[in-house]
């Protein structure tokens, strides 16, 4: 799993990357085209798909490597690493990507993977929380999602006020906003598959996040994507980890139920 920046660049130059996950790509494709719910993957051009399905070419694995490295690194006053408590991530974290956000009784809010990681850092490791969008937090989120790849998304609304938060997210989704006066639904419910100038609109599903966007030349979180969409329609964005985006994330997990976890994915 260890790769260097040089290694990735070199691999990118290889005409034929390892296609060990071609079967996985087929599976995602099948799930995507046979159901009404479709991953952004199924709207992407083949070059982008191939970049995603080949772990060697997939640039987001630079961040997965950062996460894997951090997993075993002791940090904070408690003198612990993630591994000290959770052992082998491939065993203990396999169901995280497909089941988050979950209810957090302490904050009385839904908690996504990023917030869960920082809660562990603050409370159990006595370490400084990582900043949203830092390479460390993106890396750990990507690593944790990567060990659950392929699992169907199923976020439960049974606990706490998850149902009400999902409803709030639904309201957000259908609310027109910004100077362009568009709701998420105008693009992602009414127009998936259609071009908006040079971009092919998708259903705006969340199963691929964090995602390496070629436009960003970097891995980015779901909340970064929300902020980007809000900016595009000239609406004031909300903060990373804000209540509004947590509600939206919770709702979108319902819209994307049963899509396979793809994170970290590659998108245009």
């Amino acid at each position, binding site marked *: 799993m260890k790769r260097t920046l040089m290694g990735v660049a070199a691999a990118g130059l290889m005409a034929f990357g390892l296609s060990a996950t071609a079967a996985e790509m087929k599976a995602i494709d099948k799930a995507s085209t046979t159901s009404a719910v479709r991953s952004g993957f199924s709207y992407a051009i083949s070059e982008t798909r191939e970049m995603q399905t080949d772990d060697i070419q997939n640039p987001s694995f630079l961040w997965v490597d950062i996460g894997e490295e951090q997993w075993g690194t002791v940090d904070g006053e408690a003198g612990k690493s993630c591994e000290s408590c959770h052992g082998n991530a491939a065993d203990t974290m396999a169901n995280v990507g497909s089941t988050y956000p979950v209810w957090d009784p302490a904050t009385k809010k839904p908690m996504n993977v990023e917030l869960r990681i920082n809660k562990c850092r603050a409370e159990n490791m006595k370490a400084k929380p990582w900043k949203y969008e830092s390479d460390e937090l993106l890396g750990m989120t990507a690593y944790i999602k990567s060990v659950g790849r392929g699992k169907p998304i199923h976020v439960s609304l049974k606990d706490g006020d998850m149902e009400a938060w999902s409803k709030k997210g639904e309201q957000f989704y259908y609310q027109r906003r*910004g*100077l362009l006066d568009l709701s998420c639904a*105008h693009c992602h419910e009414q127009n998936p598959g259609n071009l908006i*100038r040079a971009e092919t609109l998708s259903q705006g599903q969340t199963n691929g996040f964090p995602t390496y966007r070629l436009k960003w030349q970097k891995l980015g979180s779901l909340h970064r994507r929300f902020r980007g969409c809000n900016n595009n329609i000239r609406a*004031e964005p909300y903060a990373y980890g804000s209540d509004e985006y947590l509600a939206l994330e919770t709702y979108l997990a319902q819209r994307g139920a049963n899509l396979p976890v793809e994170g970290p994915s590659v998108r245009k």
Partner: protein
Amino acid sequence: MKVRSIFGAALGIALMAAAGTQVQAAGLVKYTVVEHPSIPESLTKGDPVRGRAAVINRQKGNCLACHSIPEIPEEQFHGEVGPVLDDVGSRMSAGEIRMRIVDPKVINPETAMPSFYKLEGLHRVAKKWQGKTILSAQEVEDVVAYMLTLKGSYSN
């Protein structure tokens, strides 16, 4: 028709007049919507060449984001969200086109098309865009003038 609002305080004061509904917002040119709906009188004099540029410009009309316009073959990317705009100049009157651009929600409340000359009724507009319309009255008329030149049959 260049009557500016003297009611600075409130936005979007609609006055019922015998001839139609006058729409007046602080800082915007007043206009009248007649049954149909349509805005028959121009806000100011338009120029089709400038209109064409505004239609392409991503910071202005960016109409190509949603519409394919065959008369603009030199632009590589045309959107598919709205209908192809090829012959609107022969199908629609200036008033209908003006209504469509100024505030298409009057025609179809559910439409994805933005209201290009409207300030009120918007939610969470980004700070740097507050109090601004997407197009100025001049730009609206320029785009209307350009749309009126679209009469179909383009070789490209």
